[in-house]
């Protein structure tokens, strides 16, 4: 191939907000539940029903806007987007076109070539659609409005990304920020975060953008990577063959690793937006904005700076620990209780991560408390339990929320500190290993280690190693 192409990618990211209720009615947003059990006249588009805006949605949208450096639109409105589809009970979606709540922000990502800012064009609030399930038996679609009216924010980026790696770094960053804010759990697989990819290619060196396509139905980072690669080559092939790229929406089929155009003569793509007459404008006062700003949690970048100053842990650890707010908070609280940040960090970085991975869980799913972790650190650090015992306690703390002290007591894991009993064992060990005794007395310090090991073995690991050492030296 003679010509070199570059990829230009912009993202439209939909994020389901973590409110208790829907954006325009008092129905629960909880997942699960039999079809249409979380519905009312409003979210099923009954004639005469009217929307009322959930305040929390506005606050979450502002929080995300502030955390991504956006300007907050102090006077914003809702508009109707008109299109027919059965998952959309009113056949219009309440969204924001003319005055979205946030504009002109950006987030920084790290690329192999260094740091890069991905611009955010706007963030707007809107309602989610219901769910359609194909019923094979009837060859019909079953319509469930439980998700209809769940609040969404749509984050529209500038076309600032050039590769799948950058797209994923951007999504990761957004996810991290939004999860820190508690505004959403941002799970791609479950659909609480969804990304539509706008992609075009152009010859390296050209300024003008190529014609872009929009790809939908991307529900994992892997699918996003594959779809970007697939669409890039599809467009390049077209251009190389002298054919035009058509501006269209394409649906990615990750099993077939192929996208196809979602075209229909019944689909005119003319949404006839107009100001929503059933909702009044939202005016965001300085006071309200400051109130939300004051409630913003410390974000990761801020934490990283502080950790460097306050805790004696490697930067690598700090980065891992702050990847999720709940992990970071666990670390900070446990460190504050026991005063041993490095030890706390080791538990979180090692055992915690290992068990989370095993259980396919996220840091948010951790059920033990900072106090429990601090107690475990204390027990292990003072020698009240030895290493293997501490690990055993941790597993039970992680899995069942067992109290470390109680668990040690119930399972007799405490190190044996009865000098009398220990002395007997040591005596026996010395008797059984005359050669080592001789070696030690001959000046080989190493032999002591072997004898400690033998004693620990005889005690089935429950002896306090410090005490064993002391008695050995005494008897030798």
């Amino acid at each position: 191939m003679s010509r070199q192409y570059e990829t230009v990618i912009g993202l439209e990211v939909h994020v389901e907000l973590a409110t208790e209720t829907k954006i325009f009615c008092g129905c629960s947003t909880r997942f699960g539940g039999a079809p249409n059990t979380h519905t009312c006249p409003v979210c099923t588009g009954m004639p005469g029903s009217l929307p009322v805006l959930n305040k929390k949605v506005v606050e979450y949208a502002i929080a995300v806007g502030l955390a991504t450096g956006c300007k907050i639109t102090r006077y914003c409105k809702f508009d109707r987007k008109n299109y027919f589809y059965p998952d959309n009970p009113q056949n219009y979606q309440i969204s924001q076109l003319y005055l979205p709540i946030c504009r002109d922000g950006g987030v920084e990502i790290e690329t192999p070539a260094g740091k890069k800012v991905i611009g955010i064009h706007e963030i707007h609030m809107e309602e989610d659609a219901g769910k359609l399930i194909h019923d094979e038996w009837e060859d019909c679609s079953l319509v469930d409005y439980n998700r209809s009216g769940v609040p969404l924010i749509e984050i529209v980026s500038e076309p600032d990304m050039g590769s799948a790696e950058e797209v994923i770094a951007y999504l990761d960053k957004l996810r991290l920020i939004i999860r820190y804010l508690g505004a959403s759990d941002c799970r791609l697989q479950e659909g609480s975060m969804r990304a539509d990819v706008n992609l075009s290619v152009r010859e390296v060196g050209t300024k003008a953008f190529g014609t872009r396509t929009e790809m939908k139905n991307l529900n994992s980072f892997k699918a996003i990577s594959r779809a970007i690669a697939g669409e890039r080559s599809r467009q390049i092939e077209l251009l190389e063959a002298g054919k035009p790229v058509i501006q269209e929406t394409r649906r990615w089929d990750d099993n077939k690793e192929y996208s196809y155009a979602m075209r229909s003569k019944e689909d005119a793509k003319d949404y006839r937006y107009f100001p929503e007459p059933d909702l009044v404008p939202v005016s965001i006062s300085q006071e309200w904005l400051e109130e939300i700003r004051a409630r913003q949690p410390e974000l990761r970048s801020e934490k990283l700076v502080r950790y460097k100053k306050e805790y004696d842990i490697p930067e690598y650890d700090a980065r891992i620990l702050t990847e999720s707010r709940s992990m970071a908070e666990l670390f900070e609280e446990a460190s504050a209780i026991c005063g041993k940040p490095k030890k706390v960090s080791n538990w979180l970085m090692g055992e915690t991560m290992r068990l989370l991975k095993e259980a396919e869980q996220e840091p948010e799913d951790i059920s033990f408390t900072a106090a429990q972790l601090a107690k475990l650190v204390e027990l292990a650090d003072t020698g009240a339990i030895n290493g293997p015992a501490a690990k055993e306690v941790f597993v039970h703390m992680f899995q069942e929320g067992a109290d470390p002290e109680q668990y040690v007591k119930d399972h007799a894991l405490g190190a044996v500190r009865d000098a009398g009993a220990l002395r007997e064992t040591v005596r026996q060990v010395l008797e059984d290993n005359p050669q080592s005794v001789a070696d030690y007395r001959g000046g080989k310090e190493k032999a002591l280690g072997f004898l400690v090991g033998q004693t620990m073995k005889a005690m089935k690991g429950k002896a306090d190693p410090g005490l064993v050492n002391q008695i050995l030296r005494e008897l030798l």
Partner: protein
Amino acid sequence: MDRVTDETIAYVGILAKLELSLEEAKQAKEDMNHMLEYMELLNDLDTEGVEPMSHVFPIQNVFREDVVENGDDREAILSNAPAKKEGSFLAPKTVEI
């Protein structure tokens, strides 16, 4: 000059999901041309600098608190459905193409 052509009527029919017979389409074209001509009376007015008014009163910030108020009212919600199955509305097959 006609503002509305046969194509316009067909296009608006797709937007509005209305299927008009030939006769109806002809009538619709005629009506709409009449109406639009009449509505263009508004062009006599200079509205330069006038803010479009969607709400009459400057009411702002009407909110709900984020508290669950509705229970399960599925039976009532589904009671008018022309077709339903297993607690869902039944729609003709939606094809993603």
